[in-house]
């Protein structure tokens, strides 16, 4: 069994005094693409924020590539190659696409490869190359999402965390984005994705995890996330 690249062990955290994650454990194994699914408000985003250092863990441990990263700052974690693309893609609204991408490679070690990485991002998202001088706040939702993912790639991640990348996108854009993420996975970047759309996950990820009430409820093997199962989870219909 290969060594997990990310290992979350018995994680408890929340907001104020209100716990959201009640001892969640989860691993991303070497080489796999993991999808998370589950109802709103049950801790998926909180999990990501804690893993990437935005939230503090109350207890439990997070290990990334064998190193304990619990309690490190977000910037330190990003430097280690664990890059989180948050939900909502507000980005840096007043900055140009180009600047925004450049900042994704802020740490000096990554700056040197910045130009090359940027070319790769533009290859994946040709539309961004056209809009490179445009301010982020003037972009459409799909374009912003591309910039957000692009920024994540600029950080030269080993593991890329994507939080609902298709939120509010049209089916056509969703498809485009899915292909792009597929291309990213093919370049050897591992991903951890939260998504409402099970079809999307099934196409991209090798394993899916169902999270409810701050715990992992069910673990599905690749491809076993069946339509009927989803219909049940979503609509309560069989």
């Amino acid at each position, binding site marked *: 069994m290969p060594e997990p690249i990310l290992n979350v062990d018995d994680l408890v955290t929340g907001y104020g005094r209100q716990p959201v994650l009640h001892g969640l454990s989860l691993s991303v194994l070497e080489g796999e693409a993991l999808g998370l699914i589950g109802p709103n408000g049950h801790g998926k985003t909180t999990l990501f924020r804690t893993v990437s250092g935005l939230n503090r863990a109350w207890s439990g441990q997070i290990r990334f590539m064998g190193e304990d990263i619990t309690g490190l700052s977000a910037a330190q974690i990003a430097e280690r190659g664990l890059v989180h693309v948050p939900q909502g893609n507000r*980005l840096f609204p007043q900055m140009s696409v180009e600047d925004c991408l450049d900042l994704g490679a802020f740490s000096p070690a990554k700056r040197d490869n910045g130009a090359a990485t940027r070319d790769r991002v533009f290859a994946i998202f040709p539309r961004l190359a056209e809009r490179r001088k445009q301010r982020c706040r003037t972009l459409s939702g799909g374009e912003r999402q591309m910039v957000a993912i692009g920024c994540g790639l600029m950080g030269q991640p080993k593991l890329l965390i994507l939080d609902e990348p298709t939120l509010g996108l049209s089916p056509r854009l969703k498809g485009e984005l899915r292909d792009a993420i597929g291309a990213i996975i093919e370049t050897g970047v591992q991903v951890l994705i939260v998504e409402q759309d099970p079809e999307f996950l099934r196409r991209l990820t090798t394993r899916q995890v169902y999270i409810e009430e701050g715990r992992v409820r069910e673990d599905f093997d690749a491809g076993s996330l069946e339509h009927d199962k989803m219909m049940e989870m979503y609509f309560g219909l069989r």
Partner: protein
Amino acid sequence: MDFADGALSAFRAVFASGLVLSSLYVMIAAGLALVWSTLGIFNFAHGAIMVIGAYVAWTVSIDLGLGQVAGLVAALAASALIGVAVNRLLVQPFLAQPNIILITVMTTLSGAFFLENSALLIWGPRIKQLEKIVDGNVFLAGTAISGHEAVIIVVAPLMMLALWAFLRFSWTGKAIRAVAQNREFAELSGIRPERMYAIAFAISAALAGFAGVMLGAIRFITPTLGADPLIKAMIVVILGGLGSIPGTILGAYLVGFGEAVSTYFLGAYWTQAMMFFVFILILVIRPNGLMGRE
């Protein structure tokens, strides 16, 4: 005297006066605008940092007799250091609190009192005086102004330009703006917000120190030297609007020329009250300033 000629010379004087005042305000407001427009922190200690800058320059250049350049360098270094301390002690510890706005108003006000009275304890209440950078007069549009003021007229916009370019093109400048626009996304990009705050405050304070040195040669240096300029700078940056360096420049020139024009037509007597009135009016009509954004 010919009326047209009189009107022309008056126009020239208003122009020269407006330009001198605006440049003065640009210089004073530059540093304040940096932390205000990027980090959204209103530093009430800005005026007091100016004072320290002026005094340090006086100690080094006049008291110790090491010359103007050494004085300026020392002033910039000392004020930058104070800027870092202000950030470390008066801003950073409170960033997580929900009513950060009120708290930083209070802590920076406290900082202002601390610095002002430290200056009083260290340098005493007697007024001090710095050498002008350039002696003699220069003619501007037919009106004479002092060489020192001419330097300010030239340097102040350059300073703003440099500040703008720094924020626009340098890695650090972009990172500072990034932290301001979306702190979490910046952190996820590997930017350390505390460091950016420290740098922004250091630069801002150094600019205040510079303004203090320039002002200290045309006004007397006293521990309360910074109070009036702070209020002017406040008006300028608010007029300019949050998130906008060009707005600050516009604000400074509007206030400066507005003051000159108002002095000509309304007289000096009502000009000050007018300024506050217009200030409040603009805030009510455009809360985010003339060029401000959400």
